[in-house]
């Protein structure tokens, strides 16, 4: 680990100002990911701005929905009664991620900024365009079992590791961020980005911008939800494939459907075409299979992740079955 400066502001504005634009500065909250990366030498910040003293921990009802402060802990959100009542899929997704110990430390804002678990990214002796632009992608012709099947590029086939973000993508959340120029709001779907030629950028935050919180709009569906995560062990493993499903079913007919996948792309992968195919249809396994087929259009696998082309649709079908309560 390199030597670094450490500051701990108590106000948002000073936190943003403390972020010296030219230096290699990072915000730190729970540190559950950043500390690991620093220990591995993957990131070497010159300065850490500890934001834990900022008043960003609230989880509260607003006029249009629910606001979650960026520093709310993953475990607090997962156990919060408002969340359990209005957006249980978010609690399910959070509890599917990491371990209770990590969830007790990790924040919502930090979870959104989690770096990929690609082994090449983590090993400074391997090529990785995300860690070191221009060094090449080790995974594309390497051990790529965990990697993307959607939206990858020649530069990077890594996946975003978060479970929480898959649910937030399905819930049409909005992210509020603060920069030197003031606040701005980013639709969740636009927060994370595809790798393209710049996999070093995981998201669309401008340098120095601080996440203040997220807002989840009210939605009718709370009962027919599922978060299904298929992984190599029952807990504390990243998704091979995961699916968040939020259905609004009335009289056996699907009125609205929101679906997102994890473990398949550089960002939480929203399945809008599959959703559209379900609207107005009956909640049947056949219709779920059709939606899953639509969802997989454009998927491209690599040497070791061919199985995702089958596990993906299977997981979508199973998640929809669970959400709809269909055997």
């Amino acid at each position: 680990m390199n030597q670094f400066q450490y500051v701990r502001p108590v106000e948002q504005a000073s936190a943003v100002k403390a972020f010296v634009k030219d230096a290699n500065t990072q915000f730190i909250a729970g540190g559950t990911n950043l500390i690991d990366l620093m220990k591995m030498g993957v990131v070497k910040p010159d300065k850490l701005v500890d934001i834990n003293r900022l008043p960003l921990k609230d989880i509260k009802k607003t006029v249009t929905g629910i606001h979650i402060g960026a520093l709310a802990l993953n475990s607090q959100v997962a156990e919060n009664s408002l969340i359990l009542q209005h957006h249980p899929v978010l609690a399910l997704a959070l509890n599917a991620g990491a371990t209770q110990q990590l969830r007790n430390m990790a924040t919502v804002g930090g979870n959104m900024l989690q770096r990929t678990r690609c082994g090449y990214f983590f090993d400074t002796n391997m090529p990785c365009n995300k860690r070191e632009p221009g060094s090449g992608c080790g995974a594309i012709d390497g051990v790529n079992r965990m990697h993307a099947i959607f939206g990858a590029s020649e530069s990077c086939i890594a996946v975003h590791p978060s479970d929480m973000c898959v649910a937030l993508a399905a819930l049409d959340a909005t992210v509020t961020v603060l920069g030197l120029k003031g606040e701005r709001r980013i639709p969740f779907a636009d927060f994370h980005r595809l790798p393209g030629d710049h996999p070093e950028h995981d998201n669309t935050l401008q340098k120095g911008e601080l996440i203040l919180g997220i807002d989840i709009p009210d939605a009718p569906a709370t009962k027919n939800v599922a978060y299904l995560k298929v992984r190599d062990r029952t807990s504390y493993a990243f998704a091979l494939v995961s699916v968040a499903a939020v259905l609004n079913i009335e009289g056996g007919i699907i009125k609205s459907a929101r679906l997102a996948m994890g473990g398949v792309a550089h960002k939480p992968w929203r399945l809008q075409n599959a959703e559209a195919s379900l609207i107005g249809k009956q909640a049947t396994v056949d219709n779920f299979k059709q939606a899953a087929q639509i969802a997989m259009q454009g998927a491209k696998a690599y040497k070791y992740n061919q199985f995702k082309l089958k596990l993906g649709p299977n997981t979508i079908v199973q998640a929809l079955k669970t959400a709809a309560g269909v055997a």
Partner: protein
Amino acid sequence: MEKQLKKSVIGEPMDRVDGRLKVTGAATYSAEYNIPNLSYAVLVSGTIASGTITGIDTAAAERAPGVLTVITHLNASQLVGYQASTIAANGKPNYRVFGGDKIFFNGQPVAIVVADTFERATYAASLVKTSYQKDEHKTSLEDNLVNAISPSRGKDYQRGIVDAYKTAPVKVEETYMLPTEVHNPMELHNTTAFWDGDKVIVYTKSQGVKATQQSIMNTFKLTEDKVQVNSRFVGGAFGSALRTWPHEIATVMAAKKVGRPVKLLLTREQQFTMVGYRPKTIQKIGLGATADGQLVGITHESYSQSSVYEEFTEGSNNVSRFLYASPNVTTRYKIIPLNVGAPAPMRGPGEATGAYAIESALDELSYKLNMDPIALRLKNYSENDPERNLPYSSKYLKECYSLGSEKIGWSNRSQTPGAVKEGDWLVGYGIGCGVFGAHRGRATAKIKISADGTINIQCATADIGPGTATSMVLIASDALGIPTNKITFELGNSAFPQAGQQGGSSTVSSVGSAVHDVSLALKKKLMELSGKTENDVSPGSYTDILKQQNLPYLEITQGSQGGDEGSKYSMYSFSAHFCKVHVHAITGQVKVVKAVAAVDAGTIINHKTASSQMIGGVVGGIGMALTEEVLFDDRYGRYINGNFADYHVPVHADVPDVDVIFIDKPDPVLNPMGTKGIGEISIIGFAPAIANAVYNATGKRVREMPITPDKLI
């Protein structure tokens, strides 16, 4: 043969004598000795798989704050008493830490940095810059099978006709792959060393302090009285602490150089490359049988990875030679030297690997024969050891089959795969057997009775988790007739009387015999002093004898070892593992919903700790079958998942309730307690029980472990 036990405390489910210390954090593990003036060492790992160090720039590291020294191959030889080379006299690779410029595997330590704090040492280590001349490396087992060699140990075996299975009416011919697994004990490997004049004192994670002492004596040309090794508590090892590793030698060296205590703790990532692993092994099994299930021939071939600088062999083929009564058996064993660190024995070494293959193949045969897998095993039950033509000292495997199958609910199993469903989950049942040699080595114990009537026993054995001291207290209590709360047992100190390493399931048999014998010797001595017989003196009045004789205490040291039993009997522990699995029909997830381990390990000294040990082995078996695998990128010769997040040991949620059934009948031959050993058979055979259950559930035979969801959809 003495067999008067089985009366009092033997078998009692006694709490660990050090349990309170462990759960309250009061047990001091090797890395927790914060000796005054302690300094901290960090190893710098090499980053290529094969080649030569052309330059190593330590200037920046040496200038970094708090740094005391940086040792590399360039200055290591200047240290008193340490001479080494990376090329042996015969020109072959010779891996000695900082012994030369040759690199044999990725992660090989190239420097040790010592500083006044751990953080400063860590930072300084990151400043060491090494340049290399890379050579072509070989890390893939599959790609290098043509380079397989017959090792100097692990001979091929032949009984009857060569490859007789080929002409049998019913046959199975399949290949099974077990990937590299890493021990991954919770406690990281660590060493603290300091020199007191010409004597070195070492605290280290060790499965045998005497062996560690000997290694340090040999390396630094020291006599026994100049090396003190302590390893009182060990947070798991699974075989990874059965040898003295380069990092231990490096720490002793660094302590000499800086003239103050040095502590080194490997990182979790370094645990993947520096302290061994279970070697990836490809096994080809041929089974031939008559139509009614009588085995005609077994062929078992193993191809196992080893290092370029050292041969590692293990008994992967052993099980196939004697567990079943086949007239014809062929086993062949080859190793493939690769640019990887040397493997090390990992729980159930070899036998666990071999049992996975043979027990899977036997299951495949049972379906071809349309025969219940237990019936097939009974049909080929070996009443005597067909390899050595000797009777077993004891064998209650039939009882294991019977009790275990009843407990798991074997009668609910369908012989047709995929026939049973519970909701979306396919249900399957599987069996796998374990067998491992029951050994007794030489051990010596010192016993002391004090005026207050307390008993203290010392022996340089280890406790890597099974609860050795607790078992020894029970054995002594039983032999002496003195309550357990008056007896203490100390271990993990090289100044104590000799014992072998804690490995090969032999500690209770070896050290327990020494404790038993020295306890009886003490009793005998007390009787001699009192001039009375055992019938006239109650254990409670031993202190009176000391008083009468004006003795503040009485102390006896005595060695103990077996006789020629091994030439008359074949001695093994046996286990029959059963499990019930759920396999999700759509997502391929596997859940072990029930596990039963039925065990013939002779007398059980402590049912509580023995059950825990069995459960631990079962968890290891779940890892082997379902989750554990080191992934290698052969282009770079580096691990992809060498960390605790991406290398998956089973978590609690993967482990069901485990029912442990002990037959608990004494072995009449091996040792005075009638024990055999359970450390290895707890894991041996469990992985195939899962693989076989998965087949029973799905009709899919996965022959490459681990069985992850992608292999079942």
